[in-house]
């Protein structure tokens, strides 16, 4: 086979692939702008554009509140994971104390455990704490992550010890060493852990469905999922798709801006979004 023919074959395959990945999203976006009776079917262009599906969503479910809930929960969890995981990562890589390797081993072990094993016990704990239907239930279990600790520990290991020693000599406290020396020196690590934590918290839906039953406390993916399976949508496909589109928009915007970061970070960590 000639080289040129092969090249065209490759481009053909890539274009088919790109079409397969983009067309469904495009179809969804256009379907939300059609009148309800035209939603189904292959055509992309509606006979007339209407925002009725979106109006239905805003009238029937508190989607703005759900958006704010998700934003609040994901932001606090991300900030807290960055602070606590970097402190723990620093401790495990830079301070000498007995039992350090044992503690690190235990943390690694919890990371390898499938989440199914802790799901129900964690829920029972939330009930005992009286945290069902509160922000605490959504935030506290995620405030520190074994994955974050592991990544920070690796990053901090590569910082020269002389730097830390001289900072200590100048009277710098350990916390200041972390936030004013380690953080600026390992910015890409912060971005990696930040993006992955934020995305995982934003997209998680099983845990919120378990611990939140009150409509006004629900996260955005949860609200949209329940809108799709519940009766509030009156089986109107257009409205359900509009809710899904609203859920996708913030992530798509973030993805378009930070595309390179997203791909590299999520791939190096091997985690699903």
């Amino acid at each position, binding site marked *: 086979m000639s080289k040129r023919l092969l*090249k065209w074959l*490759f481009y053909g*395959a*890539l274009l088919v*692939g*790109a079409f*397969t*990945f*983009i067309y*469904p*999203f495009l*179809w*969804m976006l256009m*379907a939300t702008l059609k009148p309800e009776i035209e*939603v*189904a*079917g*292959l055509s992309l262009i509606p006979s007339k554009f209407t925002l009725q599906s979106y109006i239905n969503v805003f009238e029937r479910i508190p989607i703005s509140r759900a958006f704010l809930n998700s934003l609040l929960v994901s932001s606090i969890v991300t900030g807290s994971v960055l602070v606590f995981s970097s402190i723990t990562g620093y401790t495990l890589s830079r301070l000498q104390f007995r039992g350090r390797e044992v503690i690190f081993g235990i943390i690694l072990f919890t990371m390898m*455990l*499938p*989440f*199914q*094993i*802790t*799901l*129900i*016990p964690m*829920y*029972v704990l939330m009930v005992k704490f009286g945290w069902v239907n509160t922000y605490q239930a959504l935030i506290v279990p995620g405030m520190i992550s074994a994955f974050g600790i592991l990544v920070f520990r690796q990053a901090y290991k590569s910082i020269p010890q002389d730097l830390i020693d001289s900072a200590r000599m100048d009277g710098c406290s350990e916390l200041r060493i972390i936030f004013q020396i380690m953080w600026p020196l390992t910015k890409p690590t912060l971005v990696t852990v930040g993006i992955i934590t934020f*995305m995982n918290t*934003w*997209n998680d*839906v*099983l845990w919120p*469905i*378990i611990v939140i039953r009150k409509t006004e406390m629900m996260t955005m*993916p949860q609200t*949209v*999922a329940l809108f*799709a*399976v519940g009766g509030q949508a009156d089986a109107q*496909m257009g409205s*359900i*798709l509009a*809710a*899904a*589109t609203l*859920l*996708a928009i913030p*992530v*798509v915007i973030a*993805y378009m801006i930070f*595309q390179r970061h*997203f*791909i590299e970070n*999520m*791939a190096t960590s*091997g985690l*699903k*979004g």
Partner: protein
Amino acid sequence: MTWVGGTNFLNLISDPLFWKSLWNTLRFLIIHIPLQVAIALVLAEILNQQLRARGFFRAVFFLPVVISGVVVTILWKQLYASENGVFNEVLLSLGLGRVEWLTSPLVAMPAIAIMATWKNVGLYVILLLAGLQSIPKQVYEAATIDGANRVQQFLKITIPMLNPVLLTVIILSTINGFSLFIEPYVMTGGGPLNSTLSMNLFIYKQAFSFYKMGYAATLGFVMAAIIFAVVAVQRKFIEKEF
């Protein structure tokens, strides 16, 4: 609180729904993993060529990975719709018959597996692409001089040298596959006839529809053991194979 000993474990062994959900999850994995690895391998191999706009295609393939599973499931539920769904419209216009994608017990789980592949394959394309780029060019040049064609090179060089990455990809998709929940929850509710009842959905239903917390916790424990066992077998098999 009372101590029930091994009762929960005994109940589990004689619970047909437990075995059904295990079988459903395995059925999902058997379709999902080979499909995902094959497609990801082909796309990664193409993206590894000297082509224009590779960055653009990489970004497009990755798009469904970042978007919430809820969005993807809602979207695909409409694409799979029996009446006027996009897939059936295409089949009809090609002169073929309708497929009951989500209402046939035989097709529903494969349909979910295809959707999950579409959503996640981009992640594995990036992982495999990184693996491909780490194979030295000289190896291929030497093989070309020795007269090996492209297919031979792919089978005898690419696959063996990619083995560690392939292992990672297979283990990650296994672990992710076992966490299948929101897809059947939104798409089928576990039906028809429990044919898409994944293990996670089963645990969820036991705990929150029937309030059997102890039983659900036992299920979670057993499921974790099964995941460990499956991953251990994969590791052993793949490392021996090459």
